[in-house]
Every structure is written in C-alpha cells, then in structure tokens.
C-alpha cells in the first residue's frame, strides 16, 4: 500500500478502512495459502515454478539495454551503438537470450583458427511459444583489428564440428576498422530465419553454426592466414583477433558474458500485447539520441 510520487492520489497510499478490512496481524496469510497464490501467479506468468538461479548470473548487456530502452531510460544505455530491434519486436512479447555451449576442456587442439563451431541449446523455450525471429550477435573488438585489407565472415548452419556439408546462411564483408566507435567494440548481428529456430526447437533443441573468417581476395591457406574467428584463445601468437568466440585465458565470468556470442530469440506466447505497440514510434535510436543530446523531449508511456 505504499507508493511515492503520485500527487493525484490524495491518501498517500493509505487504504481507507472498511468493515471487511482485516487487521495487519490478520492480514498475514498462512504459508499454504501464500504458496497456492504464488503458484497461481507463476502459472499466469507462464512459469511452472519459481526460478532459482545461481547467484551472480551475468546478465548480457544487450538485454539490459533492451529493457532500459523499452522503459525509455535512454540515459542508462551503456552500449553507444545500441539499436532497438523494432523489426524483431513488432509481434513479439518475449525476448530470450542464449549463450553458446562451451566445450569441456581446453581448445588448444583446435588448429584451424579461421573456422569455429558454436552451438546453442534452445530447449528451454516453452513448446507453446512461437519463435518469430532471432539474431546471432558476435562481438568485434577494437583490440581485434582485422589487419590489412578487407575480411569476410561466412556464417554456416552446421550440426556439429565435423559436419561435412554446412549450409551457408550469410556472408558478410567486414570493414577493416571500427570507425566512430568510441567503446572499441561492435556487435555484428545476423538475422536468422524463424524456420531455423522452429526446426531446432522441434528437434534436438540444439542449433549449431560454423563461423569462418577469411581475408578477402586472399590466396593464403587458412593455416597461413593471420585472421581468426576464434578470438584470442590460448594462442598468443595470434595477435590479430576478430570475433570474440572463445574465452581468453583467465577471463572472469562477468567479462566473458559481455563478450561471448549471444543468440537472441523473439517470440510470442499467445498472450498479451507485443513489447512494442503498433503505432508507437521506435524508429532507430532517434529518441535516444535526442535524449543524450540533452533536449527537453517529453516522453509518453
């Protein structure tokens, strides 16, 4: 019954007494009733039970920025290159994030630094939820300069490391610099067709990709190439790192969580409105830019 800041509510949060109002002591529900109510509410929220996450689970910055942008807290956005994915969210009311499954043991036996396989376990998406779109996000950092000349990133759909016939999803020419990006890092986002997610969701629940980075117009063999899809890994001789796909030696969980590949799904559970109402203006980052420039823009809910 407490709330601050709403002047239109004259009683300042006090509930007017009524004959049926219980006393404060009597208002405490018995544990069984409280448990029942909680279970009912969790069910309404689409959860089978109360989540019990391990402490200090790192939260991807992208999800935090998404939430803050949605709440119009533009001044709290931390990624200067953040762009609200309006086209993904038009119909979706749920956004889920997935980190890739890291292989056990070290990766020193991975010799081919131009090709890396990553996979995501999507089995936690409820079966009654329809995935409408998704994107794979990979970090390029300033420290990972591309070296001379343009490079190309090839993205394949690949069932496993040894998949002999990976399916090409997209090829993208990467510019050799990250001009105008002060933070020194930039997320490459690859839009994925919902069919891919649906197949993975309906099957094993696993979705794998093969990433390949090669110098454009290069005749060098992969072993001779200085480009790397695997990040810095343990191979210190590979100074020119491109994509943060493998964890650095000694890198802590929190830091790694902000750099590792992220798969984001946009879905709808069949209940309620999408995160962005139709007609609401969310074009690009124009509002955010205005807010950052200190204009006196008034925001509306």
């Amino acid at each position, binding site marked *: *019954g*407490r*709330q*601050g800041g*709403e002047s239109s*509510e004259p*009683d*300042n*949060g006090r*509930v*007017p007494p*009524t004959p049926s109002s219980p006393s404060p002591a009597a208002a405490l529900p018995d544990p069984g009733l409280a448990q029942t109510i*909680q279970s009912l509410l969790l069910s309404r*929220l*689409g*959860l*089978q*039970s*109360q*989540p*019990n*996450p*391990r402490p200090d*689970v790192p*939260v*991807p910055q992208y*999800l*935090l920025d*998404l*939430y803050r942008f*949605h*709440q119009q807290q533009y001044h709290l956005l931390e990624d200067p290159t953040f762009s609200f994915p309006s086209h993904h969210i038009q119909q979706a*009311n*749920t*956004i*889920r*994030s*997935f*980190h890739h499954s890291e292989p056990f043991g070290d990766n020193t036996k991975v010799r081919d630094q131009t090709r890396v396989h990553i996979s995501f376990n999507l089995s*936690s998406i409820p079966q009654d939820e329809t995935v409408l779109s998704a994107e794979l996000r990979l970090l390029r950092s300033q420290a990972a300069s591309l070296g001379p000349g343009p490079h190309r990133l090839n993205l394949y759909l690949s069932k496993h490391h040894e998949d002999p016939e990976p399916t090409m999803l997209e090829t993208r020419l990467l510019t050799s610099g990250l001009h105008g990006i002060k933070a020194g890092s930039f997320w490459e986002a690859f839009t994925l067709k919902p069919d891919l997610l649906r197949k993975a969701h309906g099957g094993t629940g696993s979705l794998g990709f093969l990433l390949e980075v090669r110098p454009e117009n290069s005749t060098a063999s992969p072993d001779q190439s200085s480009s790397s899809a695997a990040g810095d890994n343990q191979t210190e001789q590979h100074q020119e790192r491109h994509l943060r796909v493998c964890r650095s030696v000694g890198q802590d969980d929190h830091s790694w969580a902000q750099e590792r590949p992220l798969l984001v799904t946009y879905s709808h*559970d069949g*209940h*309620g*409105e*999408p*995160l962005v109402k139709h007609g609401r203006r969310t074009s690009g980052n124009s509002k955010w830019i205005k807010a950052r420039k200190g204009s006196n823009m008034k925001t509306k*809910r």
Partner: protein
Amino acid sequence: SGKGHNRDQGWGKTRKVGYSMKSWGDDKGEVSWSDRGRVKRNGSPAKLKRLSRGRCRRHPLHVDFRDVGWHKWIIAPSGYDAFFCLGECRYPLADHMNASSHAVVQTMVNSVNGAVPRACCVPTSLSPIALLYLDNHDRVVLKNYQDMVVESCGC
C-alpha cells in the same frame, strides 16, 4: 461531473421526484436512490470529503519483489506500481466512475431491493509491464506481461 450531459439512461425517475443530475452536485454528497426524498445538499465539508473518499476509485499499491523474495530471479524492475480499485458504487454514479450501463441498472435495483448487491468497483483499464528475469536455466528473458497495472477503475 454531474453536469447533466450524457445522463439520459433512465434518470427520468429521478427528475420526476425533483432532483435533476445537476442538483445532485458533483460527487460531493452521499445520495442513494432510497435517500432521494430527504437529501441535504449542504452537508459539512468534512463529511462530504469523507463520503467522497469512499467512492470507487484507484488507490496506490506498490508491489516490491524483494518483499516476496522474487528479487532473486527478477532482475528488473525491483517493484512496480500495480494500484488497486476500492470504493463504493453508490448512486449517483458520476461520469468519472466509468459506470457501465449494467452497473447503473444494478444500482437502481439495489436501491429498491437490498438483496441485490451494489455494483462492484473493478479495474476498467489495465496496462502491461515488462519484466527482465532469469528462468530456470539461468537464461535472461525479457517479457511483456499484460494486465498488470490498473490504469482506471469503475463500477
């Protein structure tokens, strides 16, 4: 507001006994259907305020997730303003009380037959909130939940 506009839904009986909607005042007095023959319009300000407070309207209610231990899995927000509806739906049902036609009828019937309850004070408009939380697999989810905040109440 009791200005008399849009008040043609069965108020002829009221006028017949000499009390137009305008004469009821603007939500400042307790006037029930059964009281229509003995209304005093000049009640004391304190009494009028008390009576006005008992009317159906939105009240503040802040839900703090920490209080129920949900802060362990809900990342943001830490709580939200949910509001609730409380108050009586007494005659006359002013415009701002968002009374349905059925509530008007039920209030009329209640005035002549106490066995029929008054109309209830309920949310007439609700809005969603977005929750950022961790699921059972330690994965971060941002989800929009509908009908979580009371925007307005009515009879």
